[in-house]
């Protein structure tokens, strides 16, 4: 199982429809300060069901919707689609390819999609249970979060281990 593709539009600095096609192995993302690299990491976290906007550096939910530049107006919706290659069927579904999608509108309305059909956020979270792609897991290490392993509470380390076991 691997992350095949991300489609991002209206999410943070990704005002325009952006497609990122990834490969197995080591994928490197580079670019200047502030150009959007960590925003991609936030997009992955978000589409996997992150419920706490503070984990995405926001204060209120609509902070993650593109809020405009000097020249361009804010947008009304953020959407991220993540396409996963499931040919090894690590995810307990029959599909060889799965697309998980999430939308947020300025009104506050949300949509969650699994291969184009509407589902609830917890269906997405449950889908990934047991894969390690979870909230307390170690599959995403955000910028500045690495030191938490040592500086954080001994109990947090226990939680990480429990998540792994």
């Amino acid at each position, binding site marked *: *199982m*691997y*992350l095949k593709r991300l489609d991002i539009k209206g999410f*943070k*600095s990704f*005002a*325009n429809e*952006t*497609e*990122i096609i*990834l*490969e*197995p*192995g*080591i*994928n*490197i*993302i*580079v*670019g*200047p300060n*502030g*150009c*959007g*690299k*960590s*925003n*991609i*990491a936030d997009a*992955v976290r978000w589409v996997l069901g992150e419920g706490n906007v503070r984990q995405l550096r926001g204060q209120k939910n609509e902070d993650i919707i593109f809020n405009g*530049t*000097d*020249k*361009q107006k804010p947008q009304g919706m953020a959407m991220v689609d993540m396409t996963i290659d499931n040919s090894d069927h*690590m995810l307990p579904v029959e599909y060889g390819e799965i697309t998980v999608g999430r939308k947020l509108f300025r009104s506050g309305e949300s949509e969650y999609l699994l291969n184009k059909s509407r589902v609830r956020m917890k269906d997405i979270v449950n889908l990934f249970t047991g*894969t*390690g*792609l979870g909230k307390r*897991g*170690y*599959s*995403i*290490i955000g*910028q*500045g979060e*690495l*030191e*938490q*392993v*040592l500086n954080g*509470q*001994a*109990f*947090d*380390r*226990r939680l990480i*281990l*429990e998540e*792994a*076991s």
Partner: protein
Amino acid sequence: FSQFMLLANESFKRTFTEIFGGGEASLVLEEDSHYLSAGVDIVLKMPGKRSQPLNLLSGGEKALTCIAFIFALLRLRPVPFCLLDEIDAALDETNLMRFTQFLKNMADEIQFIVITHRQTTIEAGSNIYGVTMPQQGISSVLSINVSDSISMAI
């Protein structure tokens, strides 16, 4: 859980010693708490140095220790993909080489997506993506082939 603690401890010892080229490390349950709520402490000794409280470690030593912990878990219980955002910031060139070597060793089993500014890490990658803002405030992504990427180390 205590079963898993043994495996995790084992993996951490091995990973730490590999990544530091020596030294010792282990995971221990806190003594002064009830079994179910006891946290996990890390005890370690850098190669050639004495065992010391973790706080005295340098920025790079701490970073590499955390990396050893994460990688120890990944070896034990792999995840399908792992996204790392500038975790190599504090590492010197030698440690950077060790870190990238580890990535390469695990890359058959785990897909890595690594955000970095460091040249050595960029060179370890098989696919490079450059993020830019040709229009101020709006991100855009392009696939870069490996030879151009050296000059993209921004």
